[in-house]
C-alpha cells in the first residue's frame, strides 16, 4: 500500500455503446469503493481542454492518474484487461492540432486526452490505462456476458492500481505519444 500519492481515477468513453461504455457505466461502482481521501474518482468525458484546465488549477498536481477505458484492439478477447503505462512523447504538431479540433468538437477519445494532456504537461509521474477489450461497437445499455463476467476483476484492477505501487510482476504494456496515431 502506498501512502498519500495524490491520485485521480477517471473514466473515459461514450455512454450507451454497450461494452464500449464500460468506463462511464462502472463509474458509480468505482465511486462506491472504499478508497482513501487522496484518491479522486470522476468521469473525464467533458473535454480534454476542460480536463487540462482543471488539472492545471490543482495546487498540488495529481501524481498518479488511472484511466478506465475500452478500446477495440486486434487479437484480444472481449473483457480482456490490458494495463498500459503511458510513456509520454508526442505526435507531430499537425496531429496535435487535429486532437485540439476533435477536443473542441466534443469527441470523446482517450488518445486525444493523453496527447493533449502531454502537450500541456498535466501528467506528472504516472498515467496508467486500464483498457478492457469491448469487441465491435454496438449501441445499447447492456454488456455482453463476457464483459459482464469481468466486472469484478475490472474493479479490483482499478482499485489495486489506484492504491498500490505498480508491481514489478504486473504485466504492463506501453503507450507512446509519438506512435499512438501512427497507421499500421
Amino acid at each position: 500500500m502506498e501512502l498519500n500519492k495524490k491520485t485521480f481515477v477517471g473514466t473515459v468513453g461514450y455512454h450507451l455503446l454497450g461494452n464500449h461504455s464500460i468506463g462511464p457505466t462502472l463509474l458509480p461502482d468505482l465511486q462506491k469503493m472504499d478508497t482513501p481521501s487522496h484518491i479522486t474518482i470522476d468521469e473525464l468525458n467533458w473535454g480534454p481542454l476542460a480536463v487540462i484546465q482543471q488539472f492545471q488549477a490543482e495546487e498540488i498536481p495529481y501524481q498518479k492518474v488511472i484511466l478506465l477505458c475500452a478500446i477495440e484492439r486486434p487479437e484480444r478477447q472481449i473483457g480482456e484487461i490490458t494495463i498500459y503505462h503511458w510513456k509520454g512523447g508526442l505526435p507531430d504538431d499537425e496531429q496535435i492540432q487535429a486532437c485540439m479540433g476533435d477536443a473542441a468538437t466534443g469527441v470523446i477519445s482517450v488518445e486525444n486526452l493523453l496527447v493533449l494532456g502531454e502537450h500541456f504537461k498535466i501528467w506528472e509521474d504516472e498515467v496508467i490505462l486500464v483498457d478492457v477489450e469491448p469487441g465491435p461497437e454496438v449501441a445499447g445499455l447492456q454488456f455482453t456476458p463476457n464483459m459482464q463476467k469481468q466486472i469484478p476483476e475490472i474493479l479490483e484492477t482499478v482499485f489495486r492500481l489506484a492504491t498500490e505501487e505498480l508491481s514489478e510482476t504486473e504485466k504492463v504494456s506501453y503507450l507512446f505519444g509519438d506512435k499512438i496515431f501512427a497507421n499500421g
Partner: protein
Amino acid sequence: MAGPDYSEEMVAATNPELIEKAANTKAKNKAVHGYDTVLDIMKDLNPLKGKLYLEALTMTRVAREAYVQIGGKYPHPQSVVPGGISVTVTLTTLNEVRSRLVKFFDYSQKTTGIWDDVFDFFLESNPEYEKCGVRPATMADTGVWDRPDSYDASFKNCDKWGKDRWSTPGILVDGEVVTTNLSELNAGLEEFVEHSYYEKWDGHRFKTDDKGLPLSPNHPWNKDTVPKPGKQSWRDRYSWDTCPTWDRMPMEAGAYSRMYLTAKANVAPPSRFLENTGHSMKIKVPKHTLPEAELEWKIPKHWNAFERNRARAYCIPYSAMVAMENLMMAQELIRNGETQVSTPFEIPKTGTHVGFGAWGAGRGFLTHHLIIEKGVIENYQIITPSTMNAAPRTPWGEPGPYEEAVLNTPILEKFDKPEDYKGIDILRAIRSFDPCMPCTTHIMAKDTDHVVSREVTTCACGIE
C-alpha cells in the same frame, strides 16, 4: 479554431506571396490589440504556440468559470431542469459571474480588432477571396436569450416571446428577412431523405399546428427516422445527414445567423448595450482595462468564409453584452426580492401533446420536435445546425450549404505538385461554418491519388 487557417505557418505554406505583404501592412487596430503589423498577428495565430491561440484557450476557461456558477458544470450542466434551474442565485453568485464577464469586455475589442485586420488584409490583397465559401445569405435562426417578463413557454404566444428575445428568430433569404415568427419558422420546416441513408416515411398525422398553419408530411412532427444503410452513390444516397429545408430552400445556420437576423430585422427589445440599425449592430462595450468602445458589425455585401468568421468574432461582444444585460436584470430582480428561478412543471400524463423547442446551440439554429402520448415520448426529432449546414442536395438538386460554398470557392492556394496541395481554401470555406468540421473532410486532387484527409481516429497502434 479557425485561427490557424490564417496563421503565419499556414499562409507561408499555402500562399507565401502574402507573407511579405503582411509584414509591410500596418494593423489598423493596434491601439486595442497591440500588434504592429498583420504578420505579427498571424504569427501569434500559429497553432499550439501562438499567444493568441493560447489566449483563446485560456478564455474558454474564464467563460466556463462564469457558467458553472449557475450551471454547476460545463459541459453537461446539472442545474437545468424543466421549468427553470435548480440552484439558488444570490447577489454573490452574480458577482462571481460578473468578475469573469468583464474580462470579455477587453477580449471582445481585441478579438474583433484582430479579425478585422486579418480579414481586411486578405480581401484587399486578393479580391478573389470574396468568393471563398460564398453563398447567398439564406439562413435560419431560432433566436435565443429569452426575457423573463415575456417568456411563457407557450406555443400560443411563441411569436411574441420569440420577438422579445435578445436575438431575433426568423428566416433570411438572400439577405432579406422573410419572417420573424417562430410559428412560421416551425411550420415551414421539412426534412428530406432522398439523398440520405434513410427510408422515406409514410403518413401525414399532423396536417396543421395549433395556430392552423399547414404542415407538410415532411415536417419533423410527421417524421419517422428509418435508417437504411447502403452503398454510397453521389447520384443517389451519399449522406447520413438529412436535408432540412425551410419553404423548400436549404438553410445555413451559425452563431452569426442570429446576429445577422437581429441586426437586419431590427425588432429586438431596446438594450443598454445593443443597437440594431437594419444594416448593422452597434455594440457598446464598457470600460475594463481598455476604454469604453462602440463596436459596429456591418452586414457584408458578400456572405463568404471571411465574413462568417468576422461575424463570429463580433458575436463575442454581442453575447457578452447580452449576458451583461441579463446580469443587471437579475440583480434588479434579486434586489426587489424576486428570487424565483423556476416554474412548476409536470409532464402531462394523458392525451397527445405536441411540442416545439426553439433554441440556439453554440453553432446556431437548434429545434426539438416532440410528440408525447399518455406521458411517454412517442417521437423526438432534432434539427441541429450541422444537420442544416452539412445537408446533402434537396430532392430538386439544390446543393446543401457546405456543398454550395465549396462549389463556389476558387483555389487560390499556390502549389507546384498535387502532393503539396493542402486544400486550405476548401478548409477555410467549410471551417467558416463550423471550425471543427474538417476533422472529417477529405479532398481529392483530380486525376491523382492525392487525398487531403483529416478524420477522427481511435487507432491505438502506438502500443508496444
